[in-house]
């Protein structure tokens, strides 16, 4: 699989702008693409403004503001998909997917299988991880739940380029995709993005930074503190950083290739470490590289707590905690033991 580029013009875009641009292109490419969500129509154009201008340009029929009905937004999307459409549903905060879990898990994910292959439900659910300043009900990273559900694909980009390319791939993918955004990155992360149609394939990790001592595997918002940590350790420890970009499909081969060189790996993510995606990545790496690793694969995820409101309490990895986790792994490397048992 390769990244297809059909336009050379680029533009500085925020992640929100990249989403808006991807949706605009998808709506223009295929009239079977429709968007459903609360407040998504103009003039507001979505609470994050990710659909700004789209209802004006593509019509209220296709860019449909709904009442506050999360489970029926997803159910309607699944029904419309069964009716031949490619719906994109916007559910503001990922926490509100709880309202819609029945439709996602029991209907979107299982429809193809339960029908013996006749009734796929190719929807995209866009939802964002919020911010601790909103408290524990608007900030949780729940990607692990969806990875745990056969039939779903799970995508979690970290930058505007990938966001646009992955969203376009997701919309035209024949399986239901949970597309996870992050509020903190929506406007703060900018980058050059081609203005035309291009696709970043699902299931291809990207190596963001080369290094020889340790491989740091991450995705989504944690890519940024991970890159900062790698930068900060330059000269002391050479850190390779891999952005998984999608969690299902999971590009384990890119990770294996890297870790077979570095022989040390740490998986960093914003969902809980306990039963988090890192457990899966670590196990798969160990399965393939056991005996060649210098140390067991480490995980650095969120604490097993609701997200605390206080800015003084950090449940998710930060640049400092990632640096500490890398150093701990090095220390263990030196003595060959788990630091707690030293």
């Amino acid at each position: 699989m390769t990244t297809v580029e059909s336009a050379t013009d680029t533009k500085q875009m925020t992640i929100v702008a990249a989403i808006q641009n991807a949706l605009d292109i998808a709506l223009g490419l295929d009239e079977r693409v429709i968007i459903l969500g609360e407040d998504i129509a103009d003039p507001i154009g979505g609470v994050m403004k990710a659909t700004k201008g789209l209802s004006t340009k593509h019509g209220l029929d296709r860019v449909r503001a709904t009442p506050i009905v999360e489970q029926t937004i997803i159910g309607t999307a699944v029904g419309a998909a069964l009716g031949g459409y490619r719906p994109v549903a916007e559910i503001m905060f990922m926490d509100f997917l709880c309202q819609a879990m029945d439709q996602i898990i029991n209907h979107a994910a299982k429809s193809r299988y339960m029908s013996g292959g006749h009734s796929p439900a190719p929807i995209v659910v866009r939802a964002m991880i919020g911010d601790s300043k909103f408290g524990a009900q608007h900030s949780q990273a729940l990607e692990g739940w969806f990875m745990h559900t056969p039939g779903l694909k799970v995508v979690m980009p970290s930058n505007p380029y990938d966001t646009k390319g992955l969203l376009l791939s997701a919309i035209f993918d024949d399986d239901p995709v949970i597309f996870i955004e992050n509020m903190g990155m929506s406007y703060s992360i900018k980058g050059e993005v081609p203005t035309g149609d291009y696709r970043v394939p699902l299931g291809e990790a990207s190596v963001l930074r080369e290094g020889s001592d340790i491989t740091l595997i991450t995705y989504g918002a944690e890519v940024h503190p991970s890159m900062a940590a790698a930068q900060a350790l330059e000269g002391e420890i050479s850190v390779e950083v891999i952005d998984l970009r999608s969690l299902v499909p999971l590009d384990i081969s890119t990770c294996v290739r890297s870790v077979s060189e570095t022989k040390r790996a740490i998986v960093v993510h914003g969902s809980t470490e306990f039963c988090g995606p890192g457990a899966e990545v670590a196990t798969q790496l160990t399965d393939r590289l056991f005996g060649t690793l210098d140390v067991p694969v480490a995980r650095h995820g969120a604490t097993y707590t609701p997200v605390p409101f206080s800015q003084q309490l950090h449940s998710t990895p930060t640049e400092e905690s990632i640096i500490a986790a890398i150093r701990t792994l090095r220390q263990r490397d030196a003595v060959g033991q788990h630091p707690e048992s030293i």
Partner: protein
Amino acid sequence: MRGKVLPVHEAGHDAMTNTLPDRAALEWMYSTMLLAKMADERAADEARKGLLAAALYPVRGLEAVCAAMGVAMAPQDQMVSSYRNLGDALSRKIPLRAIIAEAYGRMGGTSKGKGGTMHLTDNERGLIATTGIVGAGMPLAVGLGLAAQLDKSDRAIAVTFGDGATSIGAAHESFNLAALWKLPVVFVCQNNQWGEHTPLAEYAANPNLAERTAAYGLHAEAVDGFDPMATLQSIGGALDRARAGEGPSFIECRSYRLTGHSGLSDYSYVPTEELAAALARDPAPTFRTWLEQNGHVDAATLDQIEQTAVETVDDAFAFAQQSPHPSPDELMADVYASPEGVPTR
């Protein structure tokens, strides 16, 4: 537009004769009621003998509603059903062979044996989804209705569900959204007066479901679900309104559950007088009497239909029992569009 509540049609079919379907349709209705009743009873027998390991949700009591659906719906129409779907599947003209083979988990089933009794689907015949989650079919119907509306098609969507399902939040979200967007959806409430072990009056402060639903601004009406002609007229009218762009309807088909909730479950908790009164109106035999007495179909033809139904049921069970089991590679097939890159364990 405010919704309106119409009174339940009185038992008796005379008012309906002006919309009487043709003789072939009447014969089909009788045959469908018989097939639903007999396949239900046969499945229970097989389960009792330990020969059929499937969750069964009898449709006894709903035969008239299902037969009416079959005549009211056009070939291009689509349906979403529930776990209690045998009659609905027959109404979409899905062969009994495929329905029973799915119950046996065989390749000859509607879903290669991977869906089971709660998940019959047949896109070609317009049974788009069946859900085992109470109330979850309604949002799906809203989505199919949206697709039909955007397509500017003349498709209407019927979704069937029980009385208990009207307690679910998704139902209320769907009534509102379908009414707001004027979608071509017919909500067919198969009111059998029970949600598992709980009677309607014990879980709804207002057990008049049609009246309650009218508040959403859709056409709501209750009909005697034991009366196939009245039900046909109600559902037919709703489908016509849907196609004419007049928006959704809620048709509460008042019936009674003539068996336990599921396969072999106990139903000693059902009051005997109520059950006896309902059984006195058992849809298939009652319809036969009516057809015969009113000279719509002669006795010899009705006998022939009964004979054919017996043979069809025997044939379907024999077909199902001989249909191959899915091969081991079916386990991994149909999870994703392509198996490339996705987890296998």
